[in-house]
């Protein structure tokens, strides 16, 4: 399997606080990796370090074979980061946000697949209204659509199910699974929803104190699903206290 993302000894610090302390991570094409860990473990920072929206103290990120520091545009072409709801521009409409991101990605217009995703998430009727009038869930949906625009090979999602209504969450999970199943898209999902990680991920990585503490591969996750007495929740608790 070809490696789509490779991070080497990634270090990020905010002032004196070291948030990521030498993260080595590889994600293959078509892999669904869930990033779990307690609050402050560095999950969000890792996603932002990979997306070049957090400054690195040390280390390298390579996406689809392109070094993020040396050839950022080529690396970012293969990357999609879902936008945090509070960061969305209140003065633009949802459709204008999508057009802005499509333009930044070099696309001539909003791709039909993105508009279809809007339909799946029931956001279409709201797309011509200003973001200022959106609820948290609507902003979350728009943030997801912005991350997935152009269907880049590597998707970085930070708690995308927060604020989503059950119907939209139910529709989004198979959409994500179908993208991964096609084999050309990989997902790195930071989440506290261990059931989603256990059910949909092909690998789960536990991050603690800025380091990778433990990871569970597809075989271990399959075993957890088969045995009701075993669960990712228990496995995580054991790994955290070890």
């Amino acid at each position, binding site marked *: 399997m070809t490696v789509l993302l490779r991070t080497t000894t990634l270090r990020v610090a905010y002032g004196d606080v070291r948030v990521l302390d030498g993260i080595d991570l590889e994600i293959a094409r078509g892999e669904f990796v869930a990033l779990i860990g307690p609050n402050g473990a560095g999950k969000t920072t890792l996603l932002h370090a990979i997306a070049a929206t957090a400054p690195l103290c040390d280390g390298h990120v390579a996406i689809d074979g392109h070094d993020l520091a040396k050839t950022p545009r080529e690396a970012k072409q293969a990357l999609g980061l879902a936008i945090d709801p509070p960061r969305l521009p209140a003065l633009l409409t949802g459709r204008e*946000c999508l057009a802005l991101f499509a*333009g930044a990605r070099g696309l001539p217009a909003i791709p039909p697949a993105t508009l279809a995703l809007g339909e799946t998430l029931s956001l279409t009727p709201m797309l011509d209204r200003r973001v200022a009038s959106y609820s948290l869930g609507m902003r979350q949906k728009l943030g997801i659509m912005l991350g997935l625009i152009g269907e880049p090979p590597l998707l970085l999602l930070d708690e995308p199910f927060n604020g989503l209504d059950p119907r939209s969450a139910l529709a989004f999970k198979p959409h994500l699974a179908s993208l991964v199943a096609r084999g050309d898209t990989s997902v790195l999902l930071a989440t506290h929803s261990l059931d989603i990680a256990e059910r949909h991920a092909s690998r789960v990585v536990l991050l603690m104190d800025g380091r990778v503490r433990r990871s569970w591969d597809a075989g271990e996750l399959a075993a957890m699903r088969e045995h009701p007495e075993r669960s990712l929740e228990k496995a995580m608790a054991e790994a955290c206290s070890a």
Partner: protein
Amino acid sequence: MSALHPALRADWLVLRRTGAVASVRMFGAPVLLLACCVALACGDLYKGYGWCLAAAALPALGGSHAIAHRRVLDALERWRFGWCGALPIARGRTAWTLSIVTIVALLVSLMFVSALLLIVSVSAPHRGDLPYALAGIDLALIVGTSVAMVRALRIGARTNHAGGIREPVLALPWLNDTRLPHLPDWQRRAALVRWRRGGSFVMVGIVLGAVPMGAPMVPVAGLVLLVLSWSWLAVAMRASADATTDAVRLLGATPLDFARARRASFRYPVAAALCGLVWMIVGIALLRQGMIAPAWIVLAGIASAWPMLRILRTTRDTESSA
């Protein structure tokens, strides 16, 4: 202190911790405004003293109203919908705190104007008339700030600050860059929100009320146009720079072509600056005071150059750090 809104202390701590740049952003505009007023009052740009006083009092009135109106509305929104929004704080306490802060800022401004006038009185051509200038500017500051305070508190905190902004009467498709569509819309709406927060065209009435009795209407219209176009220029440039910074940050994870983004970011501010400049030239022509034209153009240039440089720096910084 306990009777004041708790967010005031937090705002003060944030201001102290964010350092010199934040302080310049906070105090720079009022200090520059007051210095300009004093310079106009003491200068020899106008032939009649009445005009000289009007030229000083007008920006004091308009500027103090705009600054106070916007900052009170910003604080109301921040305190009502920010981290402390859910705290059980009486509405009266918010109004009381903002009144105290505004009065303190007004007193400091009055002292600053007095000190400046005292310093420049040594060489001012209208030395004997400086008490009148002091009274004129002080009165303008008090009226401008008080009206702004009352209006802002009546409006209160708004949930949807983007509401009511219409699409432009004249569609200008050439402003849009296909690689960064709708950035000019973002900049224009940000400028309009900021312009309205400064009190918008209500100021024209207040400004006209401060013009000396018997003054000819054509030069008065010229002066009003000058003040308004300069204010618009400053507002539009700063709003454009802020919107660009936000846009570049938002698009940080995309393969954005920064050279093209830089060019796209300049389209709206340049168009807004040209519009402002046209009105400024009309104002100067109506005023029939050819010698103030260079001063206004230079001031307009300074007001617009800093945000333009910020746009340049934002796109360069992001590019190099990527």
